[in-house]
């Protein structure tokens, strides 16, 4: 049961956000972040970094209000470009494109965007309400996840690949292996030695996930579109010819409410775990959606459940992700890193004092984020019609636009021209993978999780070597081990079932 002081602080925080003129700050922060998201060359994170000096003379309250809005608004458009153009605007939206873009290709972009917007907004609500309920237990929850738990969690993520890529297990395993090998490029955090960098300083930080994803999906898509003979993405020339509707997408969230809730809870839990991040949350939620569905055949080919799961998890994660930031100063994303810098500059050091004595202020941030997430979703819904129209534009018009978006996305992420080159290398590889039926998702997931798996494996092995791991005192390890076993057993069980069914027929 939620203790009175937490509830009181939550209520006080809500009143502060809704009062005049306070409400102006999160709205302005959200709108500003959304407008910037449309502009090529400035990412939401850069906007937040630029905003820090502007707010130096402000009181802590408007700072919390504004940055809460900016964190929510900065992710705007990520999923929309993923659905429309196969361009993941942000890391977490990469999981959305698996089913979102095929829906756009079927002429159901409106349904996909409507569904993404509603799942995001409601996912954010679940995340925040769970967060409010769990605030008193946050420290315990954060401390429960050490390197061994993180290792098994990430391995669970890797094994979901087996679930996502049904039927192409060998190819998926090879793509996973390539992803893991690519994740080894860079300097070894344990010994500081360089690995596979070939003397290039650019590779010291490893293969960037953002340029890799943009290449594998977006640039590969433009190449594929260019030679496909398709006239438009959706195969239609007029908006009236598009199938589906916004409300169909909105309704789907309620039709699949159980899936939505599970995904939102996955996102919330992942958010609370320090240093894991939204991209892992989205892919894990997608994996569990496939895993827990009886009819899985349509996943990857435009199944709306494949949009609900990552979108719900991604936004549900935002609330939980504030906990490690505010309680221990561990940012889970670039956005929360800038947020933390802003808070520290205003004398709001993360820690126990902030989570107890200044709890209403913490809730101001949480409610601002909540408001911002709903605002972005509502604006997304309002923009569905003009956005869906883009899928009826001629490919010759769209390809240069998508290519430009991908190039700018690759560059603005870290402002390195090498990332653009890397995106094109992955683009060519992605094109041939798509052409010859090789799954790209396992490669991306392995690249995403590989560094974390290796890092936590080394730490866990070292702690074990030093006799500092008491397995009996870490029950979460057993739960995660069970989940991994289920993931690994599932393809085998499916194959047995199929063999049984064929034998019967």
């Amino acid at each position, binding site marked *: 049961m939620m203790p009175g002081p937490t509830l009181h602080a939550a209520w006080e925080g809500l009143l502060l956000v809704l009062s005049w003129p306070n409400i102006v700050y999160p709205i302005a922060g959200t709108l500003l972040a959304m407008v910037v998201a449309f502009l090529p060359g400035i990412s939401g*994170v*850069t906007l*937040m*970094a*630029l905003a*820090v*000096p*502007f*707010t*130096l*003379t402000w009181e802590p309250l408007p700072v919390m209000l504004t940055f809460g809005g900016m964190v929510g608004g900065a992710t705007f458009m990520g999923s929309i470009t993923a659905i429309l153009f196969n361009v993941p605007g942000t890391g977490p939206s990469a999981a959305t494109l698996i089913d979102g873009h095929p829906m756009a290709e079927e002429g159901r972009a409106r349904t996909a965007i409507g569904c993404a917007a509603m799942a995001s907004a409601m996912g954010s609500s679940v995340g925040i309400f769970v967060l409010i309920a769990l605030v008193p237990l946050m420290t315990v929850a*954060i*401390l429960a996840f*050490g*390197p061994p738990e993180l290792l098994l969690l990430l391995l669970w993520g890797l094994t979901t690949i087996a679930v996502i890529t049904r039927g192409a297990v060998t190819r998926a395993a090879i793509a996973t292996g390539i992803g893991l090998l690519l994740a080894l490029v860079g*300097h*070894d*955090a*344990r*010994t*500081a*030695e*360089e690995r596979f960098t070939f003397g290039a*300083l*650019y590779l*010291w*930080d490893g293969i960037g996930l953002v340029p890799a994803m943009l290449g594998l999906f977006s640039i590969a898509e433009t190449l594929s579109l260019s030679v496909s003979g398709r006239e438009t993405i959706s195969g239609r020339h007029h908006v009236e010819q598009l199938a589906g509707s916004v409300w169909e997408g909105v309704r789907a969230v309620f039709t699949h409410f159980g899936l939505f809730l599970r995904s939102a809870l996955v996102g919330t839990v992942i958010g609370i775990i*320090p*240093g894991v991040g939204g991209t892992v949350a989205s892919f894990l939620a997608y994996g569990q959606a496939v895993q827990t569905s009886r009819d899985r055949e349509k996943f990857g080919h435009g199944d709306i459940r494949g949009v609900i799961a990552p979108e719900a998890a991604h936004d549900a994660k935002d609330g939980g992700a504030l906990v*490690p930031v505010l309680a*221990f*100063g*561990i940012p889970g994303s*670039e956005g929360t*890193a*800038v947020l933390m*810098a*802003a808070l*520290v*500059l*205003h*004398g709001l*050091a*993360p*820690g*126990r*004092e902030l989570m107890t004595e200044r709890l209403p202020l913490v809730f101001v941030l949480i409610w601002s984020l909540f408001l911002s997430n709903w605002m972005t979703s509502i604006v997304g819904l309002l923009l569905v019609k003009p956005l869906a129209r883009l899928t009826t534009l001629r490919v010759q018009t769209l390809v240069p636009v998508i290519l430009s978006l991908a190039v700018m996305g690759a560059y603005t992420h*870290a*402002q*390195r021209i090498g990332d653009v080159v890397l995106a094109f290398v992955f683009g060519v590889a992605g094109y041939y993978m798509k052409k010859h039926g090789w799954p790209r998702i396992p490669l991306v997931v392995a690249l995403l999780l590989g560094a974390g798996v290796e*890092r*936590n494996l*080394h*730490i866990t092995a*070292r*702690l074990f070597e*030093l006799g*500092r*791991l008491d397995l009996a005192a870490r029950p979460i390890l057993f739960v995660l081990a069970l989940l991994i076993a289920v993931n690994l057993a599932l393809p085998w069980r499916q194959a047995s079932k199929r063999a049984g069914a064929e034998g019967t027929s």
Partner: protein
Amino acid sequence: MLGRLVAAGAGAVTGVGACARLVTGECADLAGARIRWVVPNAPGGGYDAETRLLEPYLERRLGAEIVIDNQPGAGGITGARAIASARPDGRTLGTIGVPGLLVATMLGNTDAPDPSRDFTVLGRISRSWHVWAVGLKSPLRSIDDVIARSATRPVAFAINEAGSASLVGIAETAALLGIGVDLVAGFTGTRSACLAAIRGDVDLVCFNYDTIRDLIASGDLLPLLQVSTAPVAPDKVLEGVPVLGGARGLATARAKARNTDAERARAAANALIHVIGSGRIVVAPAHLPPAVAQCLSSALYATLTSAELGPAGRDFDAATGPAAAAEVQAAALDAPQLVPAVREAMRALRQ
């Protein structure tokens, strides 16, 4: 462009107009110039936030336009190289962290500039006082406990990456005090390593006091040793916590107790404190004309110690140590003295 945006905005909001220019004789050449300030990290985070905070004030003081150029990558080497390879004309300066470059050089990374040779030091933005701390549940309650424990079994430290300042601090301090250590490397950030200590996975952490001050204040971490010559902050929780350097420091006391050269131990401890404490320093390319260096250095120091920074300026108060060039230069020159102990720690990590 980014610099302009920030300067314009900060000026509008804070009314920086009160800030007087310092276009004196030696700075006349820079008036109206465009100065590039290289930040070796992406937007956001400590280096970037500090620079953006200082930029409008320094800009007005110099009468020049400062453009912040974020050049992240390779643990700060990319940015450091950009500074070192620029023309020494006062139009390029930037922020570096000395310990990181030191470790990279020791690992044979020929791309990493040498902090004692490849730069003109202009001053220090903030210094970095390291402390050793244990978690709440640890049975080790004092540095004496640590020394006693290490006689039978090495104490375990959580550190971030092997190329970090913490590694330099731990390796050298442990060698000075005769403490056996096991390093557990690979944590993603100071806080993750601290959580490992709080959880009881490791015994100790060694980090900049400012970055773990809140965890110490809340009682999650207990400080056992200050890697300094005097108390690093006037905080009650640091009362009675021994300091490493100086005539009465633990390094000297331990050397005497172990019948080794106390004077040498004190000098080594002071060198370590110089380098680790050098923190975030501002540099320009080597061979910068002395007059230009003097202009930039004095303008930077005046900005850092000015009241015009307002509440945010507390980050640059005396405790965190802005300093002029001469003092910081010594830190860069002392860096090579630390090589043997750090090299030994790196070797142990690779085993």
